[in-house]
C-alpha cells in the first residue's frame, strides 16, 4: 500500500512538472463548457478549430492549419501573426518559452 502511495505521488508530481509550462494556458483552456479557450487535450495532429463545442474565430477556422510542433510554436510566439484576428488574447511568449510550452503539449499528448 505504502509503495503504491509513493508511486502515485511520484507520478503525480512528474505530471505536475510536465504541466508546469502550461500553467498560464490552462487558466483558460479548460474542459468546462464555458471555458474561454478550447481543450488542449490531443491538440498535436488535430485540425485547427475542430472541437464541436467551441466557438472559434473566423480567421482561425479559415487558416487551414493542422497543429504540429512548428506551427504551434509560431502561434504561441505570436498568435496574431499566424491567424490575424484570432480570439486568443494571449500576447505571445518568447521563442524559448514557446518551445517549452510546445514540448509540454506534445508530452501531454503522449501521456493521455
Amino acid at each position, binding site marked *: 500500500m505504502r509503495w503504491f502511495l509513493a508511486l502515485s505521488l511520484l507520478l503525480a508530481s512528474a505530471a505536475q512538472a510536465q504541466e508546469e509550462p502550461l500553467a*498560464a494556458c490552462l*487558466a*483558460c483552456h479548460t474542459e468546462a463548457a*464555458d471555458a*474561454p479557450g478550447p481543450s488542449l487535450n490531443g491538440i498535436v495532429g488535430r485540425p485547427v478549430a475542430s472541437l464541436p463545442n467551441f466557438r472559434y474565430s473566423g480567421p482561425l477556422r479559415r487558416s487551414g492549419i493542422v497543429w504540429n510542433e512548428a506551427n504551434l510554436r509560431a502561434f504561441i510566439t505570436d498568435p496574431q501573426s499566424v491567424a490575424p484576428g484570432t480570439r486568443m*488574447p*494571449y*500576447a505571445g511568449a518568447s521563442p524559448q518559452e514557446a518551445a517549452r510550452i510546445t514540448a509540454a503539449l506534445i508530452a501531454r499528448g503522449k501521456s493521455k
Partner: protein
Amino acid sequence: MTVKLKPVDAVIVGMGWAGSIMARELTRAGLHVVGLERGPLRRPSEDFTLPGIRDELRYAVRQELFADTSTETLTFRHARGEEALPIRRWGAFTPGTGLGGAGSHWNGMHWRYLPYDLNPRRHIQERYGRGAIAPEMTIGDFGIEWSEIEPYYGRFEKLCGVSGKAGNIGGRIIAGGNPFEGARGGEFPNAPLERTSAGELFVDAAQTLGFRPFPLPASNASSAYTNPEGARLGACTYCGHCERFGCETNAKASPNTTLVPALLAEQRFTLRSGAWVSQILYDRHARKARGVAYTDTASGETYEQPADLVIVAGYVFTNTKLLLTSGIGRPYDPASGKGAVGRNYAYQTGGGVQVFLKDAALNPFIGAGALGTNIDEFNGDNFDHGGLGFFGGATIGVTSGGGRPIGYHPVPPGTPRWGGAWKQAAHDWYGRTLSIGASGASYAHRDNYLDLDPTYRDALGQPLLRMTFNFRENDRKLAAYATEVTKKIAAAMPGVAAIAPANPRGDFHVVPYQSTHNTGGTIMGADPHSSVVNRYSQSWDADNLFVLGASVFPQNTSYNPTGTVGALAYWAADAITRRWLKSPVALA
C-alpha cells in the same frame, strides 16, 4: 396582472460583487436563493472576447456596459432650491448594469481601507478634540474594528487573486509594501504586476523625497491563479482595456469569472436577468420585508417574489431609491438634519499634475486597470491635520491604465485645441507624458444628500433619484493640498519639460469623468435615527432586510470602494449564516 411566485428562502436584488458574494454564502448555508439582475446576462466566454472587446468606441465612448439612462437615471443639482435635471449620459461616474454589475467593467483597484477609515469620527475627536469636526460635516463611523474586518478583506482578496505586496503582516512592516496599511493576515495571493516606466519614474522621485511607494493592489492577476471557488484566472496581458471593458483573459476579477460559475452549478440558486425590482414588499406593522416586486424588462410582466430574507445589493443609487420608494425608514431632511435614508451621500475629490518629459518612451498603450504605484504619506490621518482646515487625505500615485487612441492624447498647456499644431503636439507628447494623480476622500456634509425627484420618472413610472451635491470647503482644501504634493513629486523627476496642475476644485460637474465612487444614502451606524443599517448591514426597520454595497459607507475615503464592498458582504454573510439563521432577530 402581477404573478405571485413561490416563496424562497432569500431574494437578492442586484448581482454585482455584493449580491454574488451573498448568494454564494447563503446557498452554501443551505438556503434557496433567487438572484434578480436588472440588466442582461453577461458571460465572459461569449461577451468579453477578442477582437470585439477591445472596441474603444463601443465600450469606452458609447458606454455599452453601463446602466441604460434611457430607462433609468438620476437627476442632479448643486443645492437645495435649484431644479435638478436628469443625467442623460454618464460622465463623472459610470454605474453598471447586467450580471456582474460594475464589477465587470471596473479597473480592479482593490484596496483595503486604512484602520482610520473605519471610524474616522472617533479618531478625529480623540486626536484633535471633540469640537474639531464642524457640525455640518456629518461624518460617521462604521462601528467595525480593524481586527474584526481584516479576515474578510483577506477572503475577498483570495477570491479575486489580487496582485500586490504586503506592507504590514501581523504588525511587521515590510519594505516595498504600504507601511500605512492595517496589519494583514498574510501576503497577497499574487505578486505585483510589472511596473511600467512611468511607475519607475514615480518610484524614483517619491523615494528622493523620502516617501515609501508601493504597488497598488490590483485585481488584475499577474499570473494564472485558481481561486477558492475553483475558478481560474488567466494572467494579465497589459492590453490597456480595463475600465469600461470586460476582460478577455479572465485576469481582471469580476463576479462573472470568480463566483458565477460556482453559483450557476448550485442547485439552490436561480438567476433571473432582465428582472428590474421596483419595490421591497414591506410589512410596516410586523416590521418585516416580505419579498420584492419586479418587472420582467423583456415582457413587461410584473412579479412578486416572496422571501424570508431580502438582500438589497444594488448600486448606491438603486439601494437608496428602493428604500425610499418602498417607504422603509425615514427620508433624510437637510433642513432639520433629521431622518436617515438619503443621508451622507459622498463622492470623491482629487487633484494631480500632468508631467511632460523632454525625452522619454513611456509606451502608454501598455497598461492594466490597476497597474499603479502609490504613496500613502498624505492619506487618511497618516499626517498631522493640525491647522490644515480639513480632514481626510489622498492616495497619490501614477497609474498606467492604458493610453487608448480615442481617449488619450495629452498635450501641454497652450497647445491649440484642434488643427495641425494640435495633431503635431498629440504625436510628440503621446509617449512622453505621465500623470501623477491624487484621489481624495470626500467627507459627508449635511447639504449633500439623495431624495426622490418631484418631476422626473423612470420607465416604470417611479420617481428618479435626485442627487444634491457640491464640493465643500473640506473637499477643496484637501484637493489643493494633495495637488501641491503631486507638484513636488513631479519637480523631482528628471528632464521635466512642463508641469500642468489640475484646475482647483470649483463646483462639482457631472460631465467630465472624475471617479466612479459614489457612497452613502443607506449608511451604517449605531444610531437608528441617523443611520439605515447596523454594523452588520441589517436594516433598523426590518430585521430580515440587509443592504449591501457602498451605499452603507458613512462617507467616502480616498480609496476605491470595491475591496470594502466585498469585505462587508462577507462580514454580513457570516453574521447571517452564523447568527441570524439560528435566531432571526436584530443583530445589534
